[in-house]
């Protein structure tokens, strides 16, 4: 039951991220999502030392370090809103349930070789993954795209949790390190983009000439 509540929290945070234009609120929501996911391994598996350490590392990274870095970038850039995304907020909100239904359908077509802790885990992990992808393609600001990347990673993490007995923790830790470096580099890159061009709208970057 607790796993299901975490899954519902995941769905709700995804919907909020799809529907808000305020970047600061988005960053906080993604951080909440990260913390909720960090608790997940403790709920799914028995509490052992290595799982506990893993859990703490991911909570600190996703709940404290990432939001801190992103909020700092936000302050330096002085950009607070995603003004005019490719897909509007109303349409994004409606895309949410459709995506979830689709991920349910996918999860029924995906035979698992072993039993899964909760029937909601796989579809919700897919849902989070697709929402992340959707954020990356439908938003213009580079910062929201980084958030999309984080949501995408959260989805992969949730998927990994579902099959964690089969998957060594080492791989998960490797993914976390990748994401950490990714966010770090992206923060710096966004800062330089805005220094150079006075905005972080990625659609205008494609019009660059020598």
């Amino acid at each position, binding site marked *: 039951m607790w796993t299901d509540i975490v899954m519902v929290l995941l769905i*709700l945070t995804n*919907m909020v991220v799809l*529907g808000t234009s305020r970047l600061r609120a988005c960053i906080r929501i993604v951080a909440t999502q990260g913390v909720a996911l960090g608790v997940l391994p403790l709920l799914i598996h028995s509490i052992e030392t290595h799982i506990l350490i893993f859990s703490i590392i991911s909570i600190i990274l996703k709940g404290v370090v990432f939001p801190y870095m992103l909020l700092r970038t936000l302050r330096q850039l002085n950009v607070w809103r995603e003004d005019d995304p490719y897909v509007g907020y*109303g349409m994004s*909100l409606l895309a949410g349930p459709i995506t979830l*239904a689709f991920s349910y359908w996918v999860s029924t077509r995906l035979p698992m070789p072993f039993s899964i802790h909760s*029937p*909601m885990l796989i579809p919700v992990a897919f849902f989070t993954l697709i929402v992340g992808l959707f954020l990356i393609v439908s938003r213009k600001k580079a910062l929201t795209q980084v958030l999309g990347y984080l949501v995408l990673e959260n989805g992969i993490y949730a998927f990994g949790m579902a099959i964690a007995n089969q998957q060594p923790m080492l791989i998960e830790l490797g993914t976390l390190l990748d994401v950490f470096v990714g966010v770090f580099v992206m923060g710096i890159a966004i800062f330089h983009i805005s220094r150079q061009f006075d905005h972080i709208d990625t659609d205008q970057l494609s019009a660059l000439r020598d």
Partner: protein
Amino acid sequence: MTELILKVIQPLAALLLAPMLLGIINRVKAKFAGRKGQPILQTYYDLWRLFHKGAVYSNTTSWIFRVAPIICFAAIILTLMIVPLAGGNRSVFSFSGDLILAAYFLGLMRFFIVIGALDTGSSFEGMGSSREVHFSALAEPALFIALAAMARQTSSISFSGIFSAVTPHMWAGGCATILLASAAMIIVLVTENARIPVDDPNTHLELTMIHEVMVLDNSGPDFGFILYGAAIKLWIFASILTGILLPINGLPFIISIPLSIISIFIVSIIVGVIESSIARLRLISVPNLLLTAISLAILSLVFALRS
């Protein structure tokens, strides 16, 4: 005999206690703002005063304006007969599909408030009516889909059946459906009862208000009926919310009924907290909020269909 008493508890409790909900919301808001606030029983005094006044009718209005408040009140009383307080066979009328009838009684109430407002011929009230209809057209699908999800989850299409089926066991299996449906219901509750962040019940600013503007021309007992109806409507939505959320229906009625009345008051405190902590949304972003409610309801239905 006990059966009968149990059946009339909900209408009686609502008629007696519903005005207090508005008082509690005001008190919570006053506490947040650091004010002393009006008495919790203020709505009762207001109703007493209004029912002892005469009504003033403008010359441009017709009989529609005069019957509208009475039909609204009748519709809300009939809804009250359908929605039970807690699970068990406790509503006055209960049959398969009564949730649709209840939703349409609420629709009837809204329709008569709207044509009563249009009947005054004031462009100002016309504006309010148009907003009210716009927002409730979006709130209604959310309500229906959330109820459909609960109906599917509990395999029953009456309020009593749904409320009775919510047990700790059901929570363990279908907490996703219940939580998402309740989240949608909270947004519907706030919208239907003209509360912040959708509408501000205290404002009399022409550009922003929705519900208040429609009843500006009503006076005396007519306005009393509308105010009383609004309080009971809040009670009804709060009892639907607590009914689908609380797994207390296995308990004997001596515990479960006081518990649900207390939780209805807790809902009103939560509404007060929401009102004090959130700013009113701009009119153009209200549809986004309602779309969120619809999406949550659809998500809940997806989960209900799966399990």
